[in-house]
């Protein structure tokens, strides 16, 4: 077995969305002080656990108490450590690396183990594999350390010791031998015991005879050492790509304007595109939850009924929606989720007329619907029914599914009133009657005599007479 371990020492801090760099620069020039002085603090022990580069420059160190940190740096921005955020970030990362490596072990809160020996057939050598992995990691704002070794635990220890090299089997064994015992996760009691024995490195511990080891180590530490040496397997759950797409985004500042929000949505939507493309799926509906500090959570649902997988199209739809409904209050957290996915339906484009159909009909309808609202949009359903109002029925919110064309030529008006209106003007009957008696089977019977009528202005109307001799207009021969 051969493992690569990626260790992310500042996962929470790095995965939080910080204000864009350019706005940062403006503040720097205006005030003359670096702005992003951020640190993550353990809420129980009140110690700093993650620090940004700028805070390290100011002299803060990991493990420092909050009070002394605040005394040293005046404008320190502090966030509480949340292991769920790191777990989320780790899973997102695993999903992105899953296309490169099929065997990934999550080691929460801050590590990923990638098994390399099974991937050998897919890549020419370790170098090309590492290049692709780096290309995937480079655009992410994450700081990481890595190392490779024959066991996952050894790779983890070497990565945490900031080895940052791809080691061969022999090299990794040598490095492990030289690793101080203080770097290992032995209990404190055990470590002080080693110190009294004069043991400094892992190599010295391993050199002890087996009988002595059993005598001097407690059972948990024995198992740990066996895992380190590869004699016992380390059981970490293998990563499996989730069916659902869901992203949470914790903002380190509040967003008041929709353009800023769109900037944050863009990378998330790119991830969505990757997720959908890999599965040959399209998303008919997305849900964006915006969490405000003081107001209740707001949920936006955006539809693209034909299923859409392009990030650019989704971004456009979100932009249209936010144009119609500006943000009600500053947002400090958001989550984007895919409600359900469907197989991607290809738009049938005209091969010889491609330059014109820039936007397929389904995208156009989705855009109109997002901008104007569901109620402003109506398709028309057609059913085989004798009753005119049931043969042509509004289909709210979307284009109606196609029905067959009609060959028989019964004269029907081109425009139909949503409901028949009482006749109020003098007319001349032109043709008729056409008696329609239907609907006795489903409790919505009609009994009408339809006429084509001509009004004084030369307008052709479709009117009918009920058995009670009441007259109604039902359509226009426009």
């Amino acid at each position, binding site marked *: 077995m051969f493992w690569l371990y990626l260790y992310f020492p500042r996962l929470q801090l790095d995965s939080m969305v910080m204000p864009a760099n350019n706005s940062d620069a403006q503040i720097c020039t205006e005030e003359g002080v670096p702005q992003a002085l951020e640190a993550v603090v353990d809420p129980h022990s009140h110690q700093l656990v993650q620090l940004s580069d700028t805070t390290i420059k100011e002299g803060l160190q990991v493990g420092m108490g909050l009070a002394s940190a605040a005394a040293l740096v005046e404008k320190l921005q502090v966030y509480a450590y949340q292991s769920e955020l790191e777990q989320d970030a780790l899973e997102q990362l695993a999903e992105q690396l899953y296309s490169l490596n099929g065997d990934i072990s999550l080691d929460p809160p801050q590590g990923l183990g990638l098994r390399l020996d099974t991937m050998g057939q897919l890549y020419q050598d370790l170098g090309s594999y590492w290049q692709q992995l780096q290309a995937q990691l480079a655009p992410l704002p994450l700081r990481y350390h890595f190392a490779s070794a024959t066991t996952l635990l050894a790779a983890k220890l070497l990565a945490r010791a900031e080895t940052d090299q791809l080691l061969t089997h022999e090299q990794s064994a040598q490095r492990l031998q030289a690793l101080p015992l203080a770097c290992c996760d032995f209990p404190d009691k055990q470590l002080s015991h080693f110190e009294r024995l004069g043991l400094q490195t892992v190599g010295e511990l391993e050199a002890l005879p087996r009988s002595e080891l059993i005598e001097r180590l407690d059972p948990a530490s024995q198992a740990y050492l066996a895992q380190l040496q590869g004699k016992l397997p380390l059981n970490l759950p293998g990563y499996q790509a989730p069916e659902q797409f869901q992203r949470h985004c914790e903002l380190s500042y509040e967003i008041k304007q929709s353009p800023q929000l769109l900037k944050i949505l863009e990378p998330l939507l790119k991830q969505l595109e990757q997720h959908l493309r890999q599965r040959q799926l399209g998303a008919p509906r997305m849900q964006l939850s915006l969490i405000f500090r003081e107001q209740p959570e707001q949920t936006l649902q955006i539809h693209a009924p034909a299923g859409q997988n392009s990030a650019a199209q989704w971004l456009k739809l979100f932009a249209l929606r936010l144009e119609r409904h500006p943000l009600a209050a500053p947002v400090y957290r958001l989550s984007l989720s895919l409600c359900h996915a469907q197989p991607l339906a290809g738009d049938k484009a005209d091969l010889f007329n491609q330059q014109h159909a820039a936007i397929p009909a389904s995208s*156009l309808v989705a*855009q*109109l619907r997002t901008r104007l609202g569901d109620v402003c949009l109506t398709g028309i359903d057609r059913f085989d029914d004798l009753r005119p109002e049931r043969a042509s029925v509004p289909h709210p919110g979307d284009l109606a599914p196609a*029905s067959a064309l009609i060959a028989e030529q019964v*004269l029907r008006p*081109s425009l139909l009133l949503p409901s028949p209106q009482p006749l109020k003007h003098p007319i001349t009957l032109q043709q008729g009657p056409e008696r329609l008696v239907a609907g006795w089977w489903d409790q919505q019977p009609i009994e009408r005599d339809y006429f084509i009528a*001509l009004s004084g202005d030369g307008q*052709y109307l479709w009117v009918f007479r009920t058995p009670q001799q009441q007259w109604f207009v039902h359509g226009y021969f426009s």
Partner: protein
Amino acid sequence: MSLEQLLAHQQVWRGFKTQNLPKKSSGYPELDELLQGGFPAQGVTALHTQPAVGELRLLMPQLQQQQRLWILINPPALPNAEFFAQHGIGNHQLLVLRPNSAKETLWATEQCLLSGSSHVLLWQQGMNVAQLKRLQLACQHGDSRLFAFYPPHDSQFSLPFDLQLELQAHPQGLQVTVLKRRGGWPGQSRLIHFTRHWPELTQQQASQVIPFPQEKVG
């Protein structure tokens, strides 16, 4: 300044360039003759008409030729799927929009024209030159067509539509008058006969007309 210079700066408009603008046959020989070949293949056509005199029926052959969406914006009533299906337009090609404001109407019209996947029938009054120009550019970009319906004798006369027609009800069909056209003279008028297409909706046989008793009205 010489004539060549004027031409180079596009300060002189040459009429013959517009002679061979692409046209689409209207489906009625009389109308094709009147329009010198048919409706413009793209652009904005304004129709000044009473409702329900046959203005949509006049356009039906146009609508049939296209496999695109037909988007009806603010129509006076809902399109009847039966009628359109009889004339070769599937109900899945029809979409009705009723935007909440004039601004949204113009936005939606422009988007539909730009998309290249739809043509638009628009019932909306009040448009200025800049807005019309924008819609014409959208038509060019998407190779699409906009038919805008206005009441008769409306104040839209000064706008530079690609084609502007006035339709008047006539016992035998529709009297079509050219109010403005690109690359041609206005003022000609022709009667378009509906007797062949819609014999029931013309009054050629006066004997069949049944007078409607006045006391039954309302």
